[in-house]
């Protein structure tokens, strides 16, 4: 997601790297995973903390710790995410499950074997202990399923009206095998893009139970730990160059970040992108584009063209990859940009989500 260096040139953008959109306050869109989020990261966080690892803007930092004895130490992947999903319990999951999967997946798509988690809870006064218990039990079983151990944690309580029942921040540690190096910077023209299944399921499941938009249909989130799928993929196809889980901001954000980071163009084929019937129905009804809807438990992989068919075939043997599909190509044209060939043959640009997704009248 890093931009060409010139874009952050203080000469060009003034000495103050605060986002220069029309907002001088945080709005929901800053958390939407799209353009405003991108601006906040690029203009506020990156300049403040400037260092190579952070600037890579991978979903996880890969670290090597020096040893006393001079032995080459293992590479450790480190990632964090805060989870603020509402409602706490939704069809197919809950905030606890999500908090485990989200962090496990950020490690997995970086090529690491997820091992340890931390969890910090921010609880609002008045939260029923029974709800907390249910969330924590769900986290435990998600940890077990993903093969990780929660080794440290913290709990804070805030005044009623100063929080929203439960927020959970998980951080994760994983081991990156020697020689493995997945990075969103390494996509090359000619590579293929593979998605592991239908897109938009999680975001629409959450929206379907949200106040004001509720459907009379129970749509299930697709949240799942990707550890095992990733293992199968990398075993079969060590040539995979990069993976990303297209969470907030959806496929659009993940691919725009990839295009930016690798300095390549991305060209999607709308007809090839798997979208479930209900997600399509909901998107048509609300005027949303599935490319911008959040996913959990899905990934996008960049793979050399010669291995793409085989990779898709292997993924389809895995329960979490049975709808895997080749959805587009990496191209040399329009670097930093994602385009899409529509089902009727026209072409358009897939930009970053601007603000957050709102149901439309028109």
């Amino acid at each position: 997601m890093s931009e060409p260096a010139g874009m952050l040139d203080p000469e060009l953008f003034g000495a103050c790297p605060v986002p220069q959109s029309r907002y001088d306050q945080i709005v929901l869109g800053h958390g939407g995973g799209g353009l405003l989020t991108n601006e906040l990261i690029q203009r506020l966080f990156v300049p403040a903390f400037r260092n190579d690892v952070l600037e890579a803007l991978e979903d996880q930092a890969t670290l090597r710790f020096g040893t006393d004895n001079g032995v080459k130490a293992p590479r450790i992947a480190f990632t964090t995410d805060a989870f603020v999903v509402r409602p706490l319990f939704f069809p197919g999951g809950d905030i606890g499950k999500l908090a485990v999967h989200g962090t496990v997946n950020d490690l997995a798509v970086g090529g690491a074997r997820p091992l340890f988690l931390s969890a910090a809870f921010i609880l609002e006064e008045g939260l029923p202990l029974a709800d907390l218990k249910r969330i924590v039990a769900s986290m435990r079983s998600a940890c077990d399923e993903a093969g990780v151990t929660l080794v440290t944690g913290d709990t804070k309580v805030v005044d009623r009206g100063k929080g929203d029942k439960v927020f959970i921040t998980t951080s994760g540690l994983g081991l990156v095998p020697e020689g493995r190096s997945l990075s969103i910077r390494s996509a090359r023209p000619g590579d293929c893009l593979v998605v592991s299944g239908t897109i938009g399921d999680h975001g629409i499941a959450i929206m379907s139970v949200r106040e004001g938009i509720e459907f009379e249909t129970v749509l299930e989130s697709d949240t799942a730990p990707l550890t095992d799928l990733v293992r199968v993929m990398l075993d079969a196809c060590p040539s995979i160059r990069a993976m990303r889980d297209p969470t907030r901001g959806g496929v659009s954000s993940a691919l725009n970040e990839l295009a930016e980071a690798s300095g390549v163009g991305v060209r999607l084929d709308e007809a090839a992108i798997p979208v479930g019937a209900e997600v399509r129905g909901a998107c048509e009804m609300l005027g949303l584009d599935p490319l911008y809807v959040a996913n959990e438990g899905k990934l996008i992989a960049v793979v050399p063209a010669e291995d793409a068919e085989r990779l898709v075939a292997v993924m389809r043997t895995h329960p979490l990859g049975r709808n895997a599909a080749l959805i587009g190509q990496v191209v040399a044209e329009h670097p930093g940009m994602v385009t899409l060939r529509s089902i009727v043959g026209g072409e358009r640009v897939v930009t970053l989500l601007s603000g957050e997704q709102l149901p439309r009248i028109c």
Partner: protein
Amino acid sequence: MKYLDEYRDSVGAEKLAAAIARTVTRPWTIMEVCGGQTHTIVKYGIDRILPPEVELVHGPGCPVCVTSLEMIDRAHAIASRPDVIFCSFGDMLRVPGSRGDLLQLKSQGADVRIVYSPLDAVSLAAANPSRQVVFFAIGFETTAPPNAMAVWLARKRRLTNFSVLVSHVLVPPAMTAILQSPGNRVRAFLGPGHVCTVVGCGEYEPIAERFKVPIVVTGFEPLDLLEGVLRVVRQLEEGRAEVENQYARAVRPAGNPASKALIDDVFAVCDRKWRGIGLIPLSGYKLRPEYHDHDAEARFAVSNIETQESAICISGEILKGLKKPHDCPAFGLTCTPQNPLGATMVSSEGACAAYYAYGRHLEKTNSRDAMVPVEDLLPLGAGKEVVR
């Protein structure tokens, strides 16, 4: 999905495009009135598969982006009140008034909520008897029946805490204004399919006749639009100027009588300011006096808020089909969906926003240009508020 997928067929699209190419003999400028149609055109890249003789220009058909600056300022004033739950369609929340948009107001603590339907706002009023629930009733003729139904139902249910801020606009007066503009280039229209489900096709006959323009009432899927263009081009090439109905699966010639009756009961025609265009006589609906109790403008005394628009952007000319987004020096530079200066950038349906999002800007600029130094930006909200 039935009635959608079959109209998104690439083979059919190719055939229709080929038929258009075979039919057309010289350049024609055609306006699709409706923002939904603009959306389809750019989303599916339809203009790219049309022959170069056919130029599509985008009309003022986005209800969100034609809502006047002062109406948004009034909404802002009402939504700022601590006793109010202010409800709106989602895309209206991003449109900036003089003091920012409603999402910003929400971020500052106002109780602003997105509803899917105006009837949901009525339910909110029933559920919150101690609060004032206000619905921002914007839209074209299409949205008039649901909005009218909300008001009618609130009165029937004696929900005295429900009111609407009405900013309805009407299509035929806007088409007339476009055709009467000096320099008008529009020679034919794709008529607004969804508007016509309500009012029918009859209102368009006098326009077709008076201005000698073909009007083909058209649907919203790729095949609909291509067939609409084909029919328009045939009329143009044959020198006809008639009203045709491409969208007959949804549009009855007389529209929907029940809807028309309800609109007549609740609304009366009035003059209305359009963002980017200005005042068009008899181009809107207001509440009838019988529904005065549900009129938010009166209840919260905001009708004295009047706001002048800035003269910077050319959205008015774009809305009239006289110019295209790329003709604006601000397009993609100081004016982006993040920081829209004019009507046509404020909603994703607006012509400038649609161009920005779906690739026309590829030709001239890069989406990353959206990040510009703050010195280059206009002050927040290009308008100036006048409270009398």
